[in-house]
């Protein structure tokens, strides 16, 4: 093997991954699932827990000293 051939062989070795053809392919991570489509495509914004306003109860209010 002359000098040129040795150089080609070295470059080839450096670029080929060090796995044999028999090795199982590395697992490919799952792509993040796309957000589920809305029934009517009308989602205004991402959901966050919204705390509802309380119902007004005049009987409970009347029990309060203040």
């Amino acid at each position, binding site marked *: 093997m002359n000098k040129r051939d040795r150089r080609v062989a070295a470059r080839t070795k450096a670029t080929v991954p060090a796995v044999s053809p028999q090795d199982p392919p590395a697992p490919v991570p799952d792509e993040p699932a796309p957000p589920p489509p*809305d*029934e*009517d495509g*009308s*989602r*205004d*914004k991402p*959901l966050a827990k*919204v*705390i*509802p*306003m*309380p*119902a*007004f109860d*005049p*009987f409970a*209010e*009347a*029990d309060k000293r*203040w």
Partner: protein
Amino acid sequence: MTAAGSREAPGADSEESFRQLTTLTGWREFVSERPSVPDLLPATEWKALGDEARDDYDEARLAHHARLLTVATPVMQQVITEGRRLQYLNRHADAGRCGLLLSGPARTGKTTCLAQLGKTIETMHHRRHPHAAGHIPVLYITVPPAATPRMIAVEFARFLGLPLTRRSNVTDVLESVCGVCLDARTTLVCVDEIHNVNLGTRHGAEASDTLKYFAERLPVTFAYAGIRVERAGLLSGTRGEQIAGRFSMMRTGPFGRGQQWESLIAALEDSLRLHHHSDGTLVELSSYLHSRSGGMIGSLLRLIRSAAIQAVLDGSEAITKATPESIPVDIASDDKNKPR
């Protein structure tokens, strides 16, 4: 002779009769009412209902959705707090009693706040005086359009169910009303539609004087509610200055597209009793609902009540965007009706 409260005699069927807060009977019914939310049956039990039982079940849910619930909005809480504070303040005042003036555009919940204030004060009164069945702690009247002094006095008499003759002049009516209110330990007078009193007209000025006369004769707190009362001229001139000097102003208005709006919608959504409704759907539609209602609580309620009733009637048992989309709201609120 006619009984002042008899012209709205309810029909024989109490379910079909309509209730007027401006009569003692209707008011007492409203005050004693404890709204109950029907339970949603488990799916298997619901599907097994017979025709008659299903009709009853659906009727109860339709009635609930027609009302939904009264939400303790920030304005409502302020009105209740201020109203209660004024009750204490005025209890021992001999003159110059203070009042509450609730002003804002239509459909912003003024009447609801006023009525709930009255209900709270009356409930408190009955807790303090549990054996005083004859007391009438709260009066609720609405000011008729182009009100005259006599019309105002008759509204008081009509609420109390006082007999009036055609020849009763305004002084007779005033005397009767004041006598009954003093005997019945009235502490709060709610006056709705106060924008119908225009101090720029002679009749309006005299009607305002009549209210002021009641305020001086009776040891009560007055709570007024009306549409943009500053513009209606209630606070102009010498009489207006007197009102402005005694009343504290609380304003109602549309909600913005913020957290409070979403919390309001979440409260209404929580009270829905629909079998297939996905929780959170209405909150997701908050921006759309704001466009449809202009942020007005009255318009929002109308939209959600109508959509919920529709969902029961058509069997879909759920509200999606398609449901309110098919429902018209008031002309003023709906973006669909605004010129582009």
